[in-house]
């Protein structure tokens, strides 16, 4: 009996904590449908009728759909490059014995621990020398080399792939690239998918690097566009429009999370146990 009361209290506390995680998003959704004046005078959980006005205010300042498209143009190719090249690199490091393989693996582990700020200035300097400022290339191409994901996939592959399968394929005369594409990649797909979701969210949310590399407003990705709200005074006077702009940027991620939360959480757990 006592245990039951304690359990009830615990569930209650957990629910309160869960509510604080969700409440800001609920307020965001509700306020994005209310007018600036309504928001200023009182709060409410009942949606208002001003979505259209807020929408017009937001789009009068910038084209969020365009920002959306820009974010997709950066995040999708970057994620695909990360997934494919991390997989093939992890495969090479896990299966083949070649000179320098161990050294490369060691360097990968070291670079996983180096904070990003050490490369930031040198990276900008390099991109400026290559005359690639204000281009998407430096936001996409570097995704080919993701040390953390290679590390994870190598460990993953060692635990799921049996070498006899490869031997059998070789005896059948299959080429190495063919073996990778037709046999190995499907086997490691669950791991690749998990890592890709994380990589996509990271790319989608990335702020600092696009902020320093992109100059023209029509090329801004969604986070950079949202952050440029700062400089506009007419939009900051209408809170409803800000909530709507933020809501539009958040909803795709919420949708991804609704379908993939299991994979995302298992990938974090897997990372923890591997360390």
């Amino acid at each position, binding site marked *: 009996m006592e245990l039951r009361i304690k359990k009830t209290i615990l569930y209650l506390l957990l629910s309160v904590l869960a509510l604080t995680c969700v409440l800001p998003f609920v*307020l965001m959704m509700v306020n994005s449908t209310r007018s600036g004046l309504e928001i200023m005078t009182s709060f409410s959980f009942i949606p208002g009728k001003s979505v259209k006005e807020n929408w017009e205010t937001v789009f009068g300042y910038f084209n969020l759909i365009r920002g959306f498209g820009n974010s997709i143009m950066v995040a999708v190719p970057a994620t695909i490059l990360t997934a494919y090249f991390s997989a093939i690199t992890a*495969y090479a490091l896990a299966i083949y014995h070649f000179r320098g393989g161990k050294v490369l693996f060691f360097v990968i582990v070291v670079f996983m621990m*180096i904070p990003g700020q050490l490369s*930031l200035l*040198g990276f900008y300097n*390099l991109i400026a020398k290559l005359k690639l400022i204000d281009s998407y290339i430096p936001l996409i191409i*570097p995704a080919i080399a993701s040390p953390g994901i290679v590390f994870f996939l190598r460990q993953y592959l060692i635990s799921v792939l049996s070498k006899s399968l490869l031997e059998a394929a070789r005896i059948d005369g299959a080429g190495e690239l063919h073996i990778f594409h037709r046999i190995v990649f499907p086997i490691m797909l669950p791991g690749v998918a998990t890592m890709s979701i994380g990589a996509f969210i990271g790319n989608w949310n990335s702020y600092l690097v696009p902020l320093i590399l992109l100059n023209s407003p029509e090329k801004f990705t969604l986070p950079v566009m*949202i*952050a440029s709200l700062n400089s506009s005074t007419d939009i900051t006077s209408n809170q409803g429009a800000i909530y709507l702009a933020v809501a539009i940027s958040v909803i795709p991620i919420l949708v991804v999370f609704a379908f993939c939360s299991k994979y995302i959480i298992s990938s974090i*757990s897997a990372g923890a146990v591997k360390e």
Partner: protein
Amino acid sequence: MKEAGVIRKKRNVNKMGYVFIIPFVVTFLVFSVYPVFRTLYLSFTDFKGFKTPNFVGTENYVRVLSDKFFWRALGNTVRIWSLNIVLQLGIAFLLTIVFSDIKYRLKGLGFFRAVFYLPNIIAATSVAFLFRTLLDWRYGSINQILASVGINAATPVNWLGSSSVAPYVISVIGAWMWFGNSFILLMAGVQGIPSDYFEAAAIDGAGRWKVFRKITIPLLKPILLYVGITSLIGGLQMFDLPFLISGGTAGNPSGKLQTVIMYLYKFGFEVGTHQVGYAAAIAYTLFAIILVISVVQYRLMREKEN
């Protein structure tokens, strides 16, 4: 004869390893390794973002160490980070204890884990604007909710405008964003502990607190160390949240929200204050500080073990 053929074939196969890693290695060298060394080189020059850099020796580093604004920014970062880490790990720890308790056997771990992780996946820009608007001291929903239940109705708290409150507001928002991540990591650690340990302890009649102290904490140590070091590295590099909430590199109110990376950004990327060499020296000084603290943290954890 046949055997030699097989061996030769195997050697050819292994050579494919080189082919497969070429794209990674080239990209890695150009966009990851080179920039790190380029930053190091720039930190010894007077590079201003244009013209050719001149070598100036350790001048930039001497300047960083005597720059009171650098130390102020480091102090600000540590202040924000310390409350943040206490809350973030504290909540995560309590949740881990509650969910790993074999007497309670709470249900819904999957659901709560997902909800607690939710704030993590939202872009810091969106979180910053959301809270800036919610925490507006005159018209924000938070003060309206507080006033409606009779708290601070006459004197609403200026959450983001008061220099004594704002840093801790950032800590709390950070903890709100990241406690779910720490919880998942710690929980994964507990689930990795073989359940016979707990069962054996229960048979021996060990109390909850004793089980926790003698089994859970010691076995969780590697993960705690991992969470501690990664949150330190992330925390000392805090940028998005304070930058966007305070609305610029000045870190207002009264510069209390200016973190080290915001200070670096001011010299590295802001028009008018371009001193890239100096910014690079700030980056490496911060790295040295992080390295020293990580090693100390690691040593302390090790010593406790013995």
